[in-house]
């Protein structure tokens, strides 16, 4: 017998769950003060997330998918990306979208059931959230192909969940990205649960990163609750993609501390002991412990931040609530570049009916 190929899957972690370095930190963390914007973004995101859930509970927001516990992934990936790169997010990436410049008011607009929330004021080339799981993987191939064809130094960043790795679109996209050596980074938010299905029922694979091997591209695993590690591996993957080195699959191992969405109750299928174990590994406290330990973050800083974040979220809620409701004719706007003549009567119908109902 001859071994014709063999592979290894790398795992990267810099801070353990107590926030203590497990190895020398990379240059991005050489100056701890450079980590403070990431910490602030993570706390703001978590504050927003809690508010969004509260707004749903009081009937002001529709079904909302929390990202509780996955803030480090968002901060690390978002901070490594350039503005001209393009994000293709799943629906669980509100925190990452915030890093891209999508406003809190826009996020609230979308999740309250209003298309205007996907008309981002910043990140104008980023895709809207993808609800049909894994479809964004194929879109990312097309986007990255466009960048490569035009010789633009841009990278498409596709974020998907662990459940998405069971879908054909994920494999089709991974395979094609390898064939054309595209400037594309796939990031798996492996939060261990796809609604009620745990990872062990999703795949027999030891890691999700190894799924890259069959596609002939690089795959690696990172501690998704360690923002330093996430940004480090993401930066390497982006640099490689930008310099014609081809695609990378990053599996960020994290945990869904919330329900799947506000329409779900995870206590029906998840052992509370498992949940409490994972609270000990969550990313926000981990980074705060590190920053506090190295003297870059004080109790006063923390108190100020915990005052500032709810104020910013409250201001966003106010701005969102001041947006007038969509008009009935909005259904017909942007359906096509210009409304076909045959649709004009239906538009009039909607206007008349809207006037009666309004």
């Amino acid at each position, binding site marked *: 017998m001859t071994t014709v190929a063999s592979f290894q899957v790398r795992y990267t972690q810099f801070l353990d769950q107590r926030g203590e370095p497990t190895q020398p930190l990379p240059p991005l963390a050489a100056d701890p003060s450079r980590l403070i914007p990431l910490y602030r973004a993570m706390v703001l995101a978590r504050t927003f997330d809690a508010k969004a859930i509260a707004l749903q509970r009081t009937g002001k927001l529709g079904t909302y998918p929390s990202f509780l516990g996955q803030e480090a992934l968002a901060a690390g990936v978002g901070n490594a990306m350039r503005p001209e790169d*393009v994000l*293709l997010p799943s629906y669980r990436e509100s925190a990452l979208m915030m890093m891209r410049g999508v406003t809190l008011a826009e996020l609230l607009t979308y999740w309250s059931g209003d*298309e*205007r929330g*996907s*008309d*981002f004021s910043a990140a*104008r*080339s980023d*895709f*809207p959230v*993808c*609800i*049909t799981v894994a*479809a964004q*993987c*194929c*879109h*990312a*191939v*097309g*986007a*990255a*192909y*466009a*960048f490569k*064809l*035009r010789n633009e130094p841009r990278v*498409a960043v596709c974020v998907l969940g662990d459940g998405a790795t069971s879908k*054909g*679109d994920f494999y*089709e*996209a991974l*395979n*094609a990205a390898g*064939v054309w050596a595209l400037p594309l980074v796939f990031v798996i938010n492996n939060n261990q649960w796809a609604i009620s299905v745990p990872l062990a029922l999703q795949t027999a694979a030891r890691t999700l990163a190894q799924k890259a091997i069959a596609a002939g591209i690089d795959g690696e695993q990172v501690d998704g609750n360690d923002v330093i590690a996430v940004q480090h591996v993401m930066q390497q993957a982006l640099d490689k993609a930008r310099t014609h080195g081809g695609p990378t699959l990053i599996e960020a191992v994290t945990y869904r501390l919330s329900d799947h969405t506000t329409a779900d109750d995870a206590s029906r299928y998840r052992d509370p002991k498992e949940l409490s174990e994972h609270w000990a590994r969550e990313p926000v406290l981990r980074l705060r412990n590190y920053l506090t330990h190295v003297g870059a973050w004080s109790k006063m800083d923390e108190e100020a931040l915990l005052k500032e974040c709810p104020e910013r979220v409250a201001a966003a809620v106010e701005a969102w609530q001041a947006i007038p409701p969509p008009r009935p004719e909005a259904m017909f*706007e*942007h*359906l*096509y*570049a210009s409304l*076909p*003549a*045959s*649709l004009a009567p239906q538009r009039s119908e909607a206007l008349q009916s809207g006037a009666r109902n309004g």
Partner: protein
Amino acid sequence: MAEITLVEAVNRALAYEMQRDPAVVVLGEDVGMNGGVFRATVGLQERFGKARVLDTPLAESLIAGMAVGMAVQGLRPVAEIQFSGFIYATLDHIVNHASRMRTRTRGRLSCPMVLRSPSGGGIRAPEHHSESNEAMFATVPGLRVVVPSSPARAYGLLLTAIRDPDPVIFLEPTRLYRLVKQEVADTDDALPLDVCFTLREGKDVTLVSWGAALHETLAAAEALSNAGIEAEVIDVATLKPLDMETILESVGKTGRCVIVHEAARTSGFGAEIAANLAERGLLSLLAPVARLTGYDTVMPLARLEQQYLPGTIRILAAVHKIMEYA
């Protein structure tokens, strides 16, 4: 000017648009080196290079999905699905993404892509190669669905489809690929979408059809003329959005209408036209609207497909039947 076939007209339109607009790319299975299994893309890769004429991995969902990604990021992809029965794997991307990208981003992003596919039966092809799935796409808001019925219309409509700012499903009747030849000028001779074409004028009955079935419909019209019945023949061409005005105007004149299509009858696109006639043209009708279609059966394999397809004899019988209403 040399006469060319419908598939040659498709090839010519693709080449014209690739030459005119560097954002146009062609992708699909075997479209590059091989020039396409029906030869629709022959010579394009030699002329425009491998980067713009891509042989994709064998993955239809990928083809449609990456066309969405390309279109959103400023390219003008023309994606080929090799055979009609393979198109179902593209539906998530076409229905959930291509058709609504503009709407769901309030116009921030759009999806100017063309999905080309052979369509329909009659060439003794293997299973899953002879489907008529136009009605499935025609029910999706935000799409355009275009079916050419001659080389000149294939050329002119494809030019416009590629230039259209929104997604277009372009279904090419396989049976017509090499059935007829026609002179087609290789100029900027684009034809309008969203309108029907009146191919033959007549005062006694309106025959409405699209794609390959128009060939038999036109033959039926000639036979009817010999029997003293003058049929007006309308090529719907763009099924969605539907130009009902042209059909209503014709039926207003003739008072009679037979709709001919290959696809199965129930919820076939003929039902939409018949419903519109009932809503808006009832008072001009002298006879019930008739539909002559494929049966509500699975598309049969080669040995029975001629029994399934609506042929000239069946069309004539349908017309004679509605002519009996005084």
